[in-house]
């Protein structure tokens, strides 16, 4: 969320010099509740209630003989189905999302580092370049990747020419294409928080580190990288969580054998008659798995700056 905070806090002169956020000044009066009410109400009606509804749906049963018609029940059968039948898709979602997050990190960090420390006056332009591709619909960009990674395209051609890939091989409709798509789509979410984190760092500390450690690499490892951890943490979460639930990349770039949990959920809702409870159960299971992983991850590397 530091990325978005960075986006929001433009303009000089109105900033307090560093330090923690000031304590709220006004007592909770009628104004506070009036201000809160519309927003909170909206979130309750369109977020909390739907989640509750989803939970209820996941426990519903079907009228026997009438697929597509459900009644309220506390039937955990859908969860059983979700967790047993679709294990491969779950695994694939986590694997692809994890791979994409890792790749995104590898690509994003140098970019963020360059923007923060090496760019000087080009910083603004580079920032625009990171955000600008966003303005083309992401569906179009993913389709473009299909074209770039196509059998007749330059990438496959080059790989085959270098004999890295067998002449009968392909990228599209494999997991590699899906991961490539995921990495690309969520790269800015990794770049911006890391950049925000690095930009806030005091360059004098890094200089001091360079003084202490003869090796530039050691300075990076021991000084710069730890300082950027809040940004890395935020970026990883902002990439992994949506990637784990994505289905567009798998749909456009993959095949039947690369389906992720997202694809299953979508088809259970729209293509399979009577699939609502299973789809709902899958959604909740996905959320639970993600939350568990995030919890473990934040515990291990976490900081309070996340919120």
């Amino acid at each position: 969320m530091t990325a978005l905070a960075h986006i929001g806090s433009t303009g000089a002169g109105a900033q307090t010099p560093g330090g923690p956020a000031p304590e709220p000044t006004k007592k909770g009066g009628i104004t506070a509740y009036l201000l809160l009410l519309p927003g909170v109400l909206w979130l309750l009606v369109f977020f909390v209630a739907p989640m509750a509804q989803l939970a209820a749906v996941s426990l519903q049963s079907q009228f026997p003989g009438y697929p597509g018609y459900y009644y309220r029940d506390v039937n955990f059968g859908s969860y059983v189905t979700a967790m047993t039948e679709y294990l491969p898709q779950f695994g694939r979602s986590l694997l692809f999302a994890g791979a994409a997050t890792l790749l995104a990190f590898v690509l994003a960090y140098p970019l963020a580092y360059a923007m923060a420390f090496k760019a000087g006056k080009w910083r603004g332009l580079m920032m625009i370049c990171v955000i600008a591709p966003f303005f083309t619909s992401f569906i179009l960009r993913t389709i473009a990747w299909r074209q770039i990674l196509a059998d007749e395209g330059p990438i496959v051609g080059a790989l085959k020419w270098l004999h890295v890939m067998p002449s009968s091989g392909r990228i599209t409709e494999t997991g590699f294409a899906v991961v490539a798509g995921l990495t690309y789509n969520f790269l800015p979410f990794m770049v911006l928080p890391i950049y925000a984190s690095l930009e806030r760092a005091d360059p004098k500390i890094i200089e001091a580190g360079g003084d202490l450690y003869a090796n530039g690499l050691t300075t990076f490892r021991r000084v710069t990288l730890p300082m950027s951890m809040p940004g890395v943490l935020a970026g990883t979460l902002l990439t992994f969580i949506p990637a784990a639930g994505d289905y567009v990349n798998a749909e456009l770039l993959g095949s039947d054998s690369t389906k992720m949990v997202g694809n299953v959920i979508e088809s259970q809702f729209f293509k399979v008659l009577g699939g609502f409870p299973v789809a709902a159960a899958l959604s909740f299971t996905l959320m639970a798995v993600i939350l568990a992983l995030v919890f473990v991850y934040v515990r291990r590397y976490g900081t309070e700056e996340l919120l």
Partner: protein
Amino acid sequence: MGIFSKSSGAFRDAKGDLILEDVTKSFATFTAVDDLSLTVPRGSFFALLGPSGCGKTTTLRMVAGLEQPTAGRIKIGSTDLTGSRPYERPVNTVFQSYALFPHLTVRDNVAFGPKRRGSADPVGEANKTLELVQLSHLADRKPTQLSGGQQQRVAVARALVNHPEVLLLDEPLGALDLKLRREMQVELKRIQMEVGLTFVHVTHDQEEAMTMADTVAVMNLGRIEQMGAPEVLYDLPRTKFVANFLGQSNMLHGTVAGIDGDFTVIGAGDHKVKVRTSRMAPGEGGEAIFGIRPEKTRVHDEAPSAGSDGASLGPGTLLDVSFTGVATQYLVDVPGVGRWAVYEQNLDLDRISNKPGDQVWISWNPGHAFGVRS
């Protein structure tokens, strides 16, 4: 007590001396201002002097209305301002960080007060005040484009333009470099005398307070230790804190040993010194602290003549000799007393011959001595 209260007009029209009566400000964990009373005569330059955390800024904020006292009253003349909001009071503040509005030009910053007051020609008034602080040529700039010194003058102009009954300055010169600070001290004093407003200046810099103010109040731990004209405070501090905070003092901790005519004798071990009883702070008990300013003392190679009885100390060991151009600073260790400093102006035609390690005596004119309790 809102803007709709009938009395807000009355607040704005308050005129007279600034009076604080038994003002206390307590927070959950500590008391910032403890039963403080003072009167600032209208049109004078008043300095609140003290170390960080002594409560001077809190006091200032209470006068401005940004904090409300836990007990006590704040008045201007006969109008009781206690409980009113800052925008109702004829009081303006120059903040330590200047707090200039970054989204407004310099001119609009200065015109802010007049506009809110509904003045007929806010921009005109702003321009006049900007001339007074010599910033007319920067009136269209934004605060972020100005230097620290220029921003500080805008902050002063912004408060001044409203001709408040009381102008509060919260360590306004703290962020400036030495040369600029000295210039601004003279500037502010000149402006105050020209405009004739009541200035209340909060600072931790004792030189600044003494240079600028007609009256100085030394604060410590929420209380005023001593208040009066700078010369009086310097010449005759009434507490140990004031003696050490305003300038430097050599001290001898001892007990009252007796009276000798107009003088009180204080003894510690083998040493006996005397101070005029009229310059002795009142108090009970035998413990007393003898004090003399370093620049009032002299260093000698031999024990002074018998006439300096009670107005000399020694023998001691010379620890350090520092030449500062105007004067020479000696540091002397007197056994049983401690380390005393001696500042002698370099008036002798001969060059200084004392070296560290020499045995020396210190003497002074007993009329300069003062005595405090703790």
